[in-house]
């Protein structure tokens, strides 16, 4: 089951709630999620926290019709690889749209949604999803 240990979710709150990532001061590369070591510079790297803006564009996408456990109410949903304006890419849902509404290159912005609920009595995991920047629905 994709239910997650409490401590894992808790440690990930800054990343999942507000897109806090890392930047290497040596090579000026941004990373999301956070890294403790720059894979390019290794020991010469200097990793700092970096707050990302939540703006980006769709790099690739799919509409998931056979979802994993815990996503039964959400299917079908659009899942995308989003390229943040600061560089890093991440995997996230694009909400409120169907496959036909999305194109590679579409501008998106981060929003805050429920990702998963462990069970009706379990923890609710929140985090980032994205929406198209176009304001009005088709």
């Amino acid at each position, binding site marked *: 089951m*994709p239910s997650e240990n409490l401590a894992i979710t808790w440690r*990930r709150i800054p990343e999942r709630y507000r897109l806090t990532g890392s930047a290497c001061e040596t090579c000026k590369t941004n990373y999301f999620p956070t890294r403790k070591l720059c894979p390019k510079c290794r020991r010469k790297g200097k990793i700092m926290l970096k707050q990302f803006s939540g703006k980006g564009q769709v790099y*690739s996408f799919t509409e998931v019709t056979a979802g*994993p456990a815990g996503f039964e109410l959400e299917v079908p949903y659009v899942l995308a690889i989003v390229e943040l304006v600061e560089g890093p*890419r991440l*995997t996230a849902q694009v909400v409120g749209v169907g*496959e036909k509404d999305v194109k590679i290159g579409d501008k998106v912005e981060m929003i805050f949604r429920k990702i998963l609920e462990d069970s009706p009595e379990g923890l609710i995991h929140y985090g980032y999803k994205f929406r198209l920047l176009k304001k009005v629905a088709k």
Partner: protein
Amino acid sequence: MSKFGEEWTRGFRDMLTEAGGRAIEDAKMSGAEIDAMYVGTMAPGSLVGQEHIGALVADYMGLTPIPSTRCEAACASGGVALRQGYMAVASGIHDCVAVGGVEKMTDTPGDEIASALGGAGDQEWELFMGATFPAIYAFTARRHMLEYGTTEEQMAAVAVKNHANAAKNKYAHFQNEITIDTVMKSKYVASPLKLFDCAPITDGAAVVVLMPLDKAKKVCEQPIEITASTQASDYLALHSRESMTSLNATKVAAKKAYEQAKVSVKDIDIVEVHDCFTIAEIMAIEDLGFFPKGQGGPASAAGKTALNAEISVNTSGGLKGCGHPVGATGIKQAVEVVWQLRGTAGARQVKDAKVGMTHNVGGSGATAVVHIMKNDA
């Protein structure tokens, strides 16, 4: 090999023992010669609740007290085990090594299988966000379509060809041919990938026996020489990689393999590539150098990868047709190449096959293992 498929009557231990027996028989040995065992398996802990597979396998194959070690690299577990066995023999530490691959998948409910396989990707940053493996490969397919004009019909051609090969392989999961229409009309799982673009959930095991070449020639009628064994890694999550239409781990491992075996891509007669999804075969035949980047789709649609065509790809039926018992796949690929190079592949035999290659991928490309083999006769 054990018969691949939904093997309701046989469990994890049964399948590997069966495949091991056949391998030892094929090598014309008693089993007493084996002095080490490596076994590739991805997720027995999640799938059948069993870890400590090395010891279990030695126990049930009657090989105790030899050292027996489990290798795990997601779907490349078998390929990695083969490479461990190869290195153990090549280093001179062991003289006769059995290498197995096994996965028992159907003892587990579907959503739990999906969750266990999800561990091949980045659990916290891909799977947790709602990704499935078809979704991850759908990202690559969508980019490949954008960057190179690859079409869904071209991907479908891969499945059709692999089913045709599988129908000639008695060990294969699927024994039926399909048409482009079968694939195109199947349900989307993660667009643009449809059900028939995906390898099935399969049970199975495969075993090979490795020895130094000179010693092997003394016991076995037709030993096949491993001329290259290479492996490479990449970022775990697909989204972290520079390119999504090419697997860098495959390219790095292939380049080293060609150097190690002192052959070029033109010398390869047959290749077993990792087609967990049809797009994966298209990327593999490009990344391994059989076709220029972007030409994998048109080449597949034009029949250039069929039996005895330009390059015979996945004569076993591949993961799509022969089935994909995850940890067993890398070993099954080696078994198929051995049969082809010996000329014992029956109805699917490729003419004059002298040099063969296997290509085994873990996850969405974070591990790639390449082996080149030749018939030394």
